[in-house]
């Protein structure tokens, strides 16, 4: 479980890379760096799930919360699919692919935010 924030060519966009499990137990730690971005005025971000092995409903609730925060400030959130199909399955079954713009890698997801 971890979270890394990377800068991008666009100073208004960050990539937030999550790894490991995204569930009720890890969320308190994952949430903080993301909230810090909003505090710093960053409202456009790619959440990179490629290293995420497991995502539960609490993890999805976090994604929804971040999305709502961003869109409320004219920002947006794009997702990078996980390498683990089990983690994607829950997102697809819940139709989160109709909520977020998604990409297979960071560049594809970044394209959602810049076009």
């Amino acid at each position, binding site marked *: 479980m971890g979270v890394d924030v990377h800068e991008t060519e666009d100073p208004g966009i960050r990539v937030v890379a999550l790894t490991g499990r995204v569930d009720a137990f890890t969320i308190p730690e994952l949430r903080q760096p993301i909230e810090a971005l909003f505090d710093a005025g960053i409202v456009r971000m790619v959440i990179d799930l490629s290293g995420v092995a497991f995502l539960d*409903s609490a993890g999805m609730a*976090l994604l929804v919360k971040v999305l709502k925060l961003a869109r409320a400030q004219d920002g947006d959130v794009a997702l990078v699919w996980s390498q683990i199909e*089990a983690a994607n399955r*829950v997102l*697809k079954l819940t*139709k*989160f692919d109709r909520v977020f713009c998604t990409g297979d890698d960071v560049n594809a997801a970044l394209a959602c935010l810049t076009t």
Partner: protein
Amino acid sequence: MIATLRREFRRLWSAWEAAQAVALALWQGDHLLLAQPDAAAVRQAQAVDCVAVAPLGEPLHLCVYGALPAGALARLKADAFLLGRLLHKEGELDAMATDFVAQQDQLLALYKLARAIRSQVDLPSLLQTLADEVRGLLGGADVILMARPPQGVPVLAGGSEGATPQDAYDLWFDAIALVNQRVKMESSDDLPPGVENVLLIPMRVDEAVTAVLAVLNHPGGFPMPTIKLLEAVAEQAATHVENALRYEEKLRQTRLLAQMALARQVQASLLPERLPPVPGLEVWAASIAALEVGGDFYDLAADGDLAALSLGDVSGKGMSAAMLMAMARVVLRPRGRTPRQVLAHANERLYDDLTRVGAFITVIVATYAPESGLLTYANAGHSPVIYCPAQGAARILEADSPPLGVLPQSMAQDHSLTLQAGDLFVIASDGLPETFNAAGEMFGYDAMLALIEANRARSAAQIGDLLETTISAFRGDSDPSDDRTLMVVRRVPGPDEGGAA
């Protein structure tokens, strides 16, 4: 001077008088304490002999006056010794009396203290009362009370100009807890500025130090009687601190249990006690809550000529999920609307509340027309929804909309299928296929489809039971992490065998 001494002195004088002495005197330095027959006689006469009266600290002298026979000195010495013993005994008696009075004062103070703190049940007000009472008892000292409950943050009371309660806690609490005995520090020790002296007394509950009484800047330091008094106070207060801690712990647990009980009650009251019969359908449903109360719900009700059913899962657990589930259930009854309209309306009603608590609801709503077998459903992010025809492969009917509370408008559309005799419609919460065993393997959606397909000839109740027991067996001893809710709907095979399940 005490009466017994006077009496004894007069008795001694009678003997000396008989021996022709003119006067007898007891001197304290230059001060004439006792004289016989009177002071004037003493002043006019010449002292023959004087001896020190042992053993008191003050220089007392017994003197005899007049023309005396031989051996008078030895007798005088004997008399002086007698008086000395008498004085010594009187001194002891005096000291005992003083001690007794002091003890009475202390008992009274302790009694007052006990009365003052008896009515305080919560820790903060107990410690505050203790600090006030001890300060009053000592008169002119700073008092700090510190307690560390097994759960939660330290509770502090009282104060000093030299050290805040937090300072005192940081500086001394752990040390006292470690040494588990009283510690006295004077100005020579390493004390913060403004603290002249400090006495720290541990208060024990079950042998462990859970509170510390600190007295700071006591004028004159801490002589033994003061220490004894404060230790008596601490010992008595420890009992009350223990009671307060037990009370708080009990209160905490009671609140927790009450909240869980309430959540369970809310949840249970929202699930239908029994399912109304639907012509031509067998319906079996059950919801098993995980250890913590979750937000699964299901419903089956008559809606005009139709039967309306729903099954959903509020993300999150505990009271907030149960409350949201209560709200959801109310707005999910069709009342003549199609499932799509129901979800659109429900999303509108619940979106703000769901946003506020950071939750969402996956839900499927369906209506069934017994006449035609037409099943119309709309699905907001819920899975699994399984359709298993009497012939052909079982398949998952995927949602076309994210859950309620994710987007301001629901995207769910109406979908229809006609249930033929023997067709199955199975909806569950994801807690069923996503059950993990001790090895970390998931039961899985495919296994669920295969199980349903292989047993589709059985009744709805048999299929429901089989799914539950198979998945429970798969889980083994590992804890269920999520609610498991299941509804099995089966159109009875052949209209002649029809009727409610």
